[in-house]
């Protein structure tokens, strides 16, 4: 009985799961133990039945439309590949929102650069609309809203 407890877990072992020493010890035990021999026979029979049953069911199934069925289910699932009706430029963006968002990044960066350059030009104009620096005989500069008036040094006019 003590040996049966030891060898019972080995009865359902698959080929290669037991070492040669364990296999020999199990065979010796089975030769002298009717109970374990009966259990081993039942397990072997059951294993064969299950295998045959699975094989029979697999053979009974028609796999010919398998690929079409899978593709139809993939197309119908939300967030997966687009169905034929959603193809096209906008359909691609709807089907790939992350990719569309990623593609917008360089576009927005370029637009921001353009806006920045143009705004910078306008702001410079507002800040320094009448910037002036002179060298030489210039003595007077009148700044008007229409533009600067630069007068030379004659000491007589203005």
């Amino acid at each position, binding site marked *: 009985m003590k040996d049966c407890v030891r060898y019972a877990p080995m009865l359902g072992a698959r080929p290669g799961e037991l070492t040669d020493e364990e296999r020999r010890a199990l065979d010796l035990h089975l030769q002298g133990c009717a109970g374990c021999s009966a259990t081993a026979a039942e397990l072997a029979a059951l294993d064969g039945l299950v295998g045959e049953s699975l094989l029979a069911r697999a053979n009974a199934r028609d796999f010919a439309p398998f690929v079409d069925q899978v593709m139809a289910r993939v197309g119908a699932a939300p967030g997966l590949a687009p169905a034929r009706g959603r193809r096209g430029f906008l359909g691609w963006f709807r089907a790939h929102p992350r990719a569309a968002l990623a*593609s917008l990044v360089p*576009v927005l960066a370029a637009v921001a650069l353009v806006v920045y350059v*143009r705004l910078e030009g306008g702001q410079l*104009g507002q800040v*320094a609309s*009448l910037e002036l620096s002179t060298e030489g005989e210039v003595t007077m500069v009148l700044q008007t809203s229409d*533009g600067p008036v630069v007068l030379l040094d004659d000491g007589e*006019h203005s």
Partner: protein
Amino acid sequence: MTRTLFAATLGALLAIGAALPTAAHAEVPVRVRVIKGSRQGPAKVDPRLEDLRRQLSPLAYVRWDQVSEHRMELDRGRTQFVELPGGETAALTLQERHGDTVTFEVALTSRNTQSRLTVQKGQRIVHQVTGEKKGEALFLTVNAWP
């Protein structure tokens, strides 16, 4: 992935294309006029100088006549010369441009004078270019994008 790259590239090219006109139009069309102011005679402003009336009115000269007019395209850094009556020359250079704001340099070699003036579109520069003789003096007026 390929479509993503294509879309991103297309978008970037479109944006750059929108920016190119700003960079491509480095030339600035300029209207340059040589005008003469006189202290003597009846007060009168040449009808062609009507747009300058507000800038000219604070000056002591009462009579204003247009002597010559030149239209030119100024490239940044390239100097154009304007002949003045009496053989003198005024040099005009586009120094910088930011959008609708431009900086001109007016140089008078005969008087060793250089002025850098920044104006916006719609504004005009009035720069005296000769000393006063017999109550008269010459001025240069410059306006961009006339």
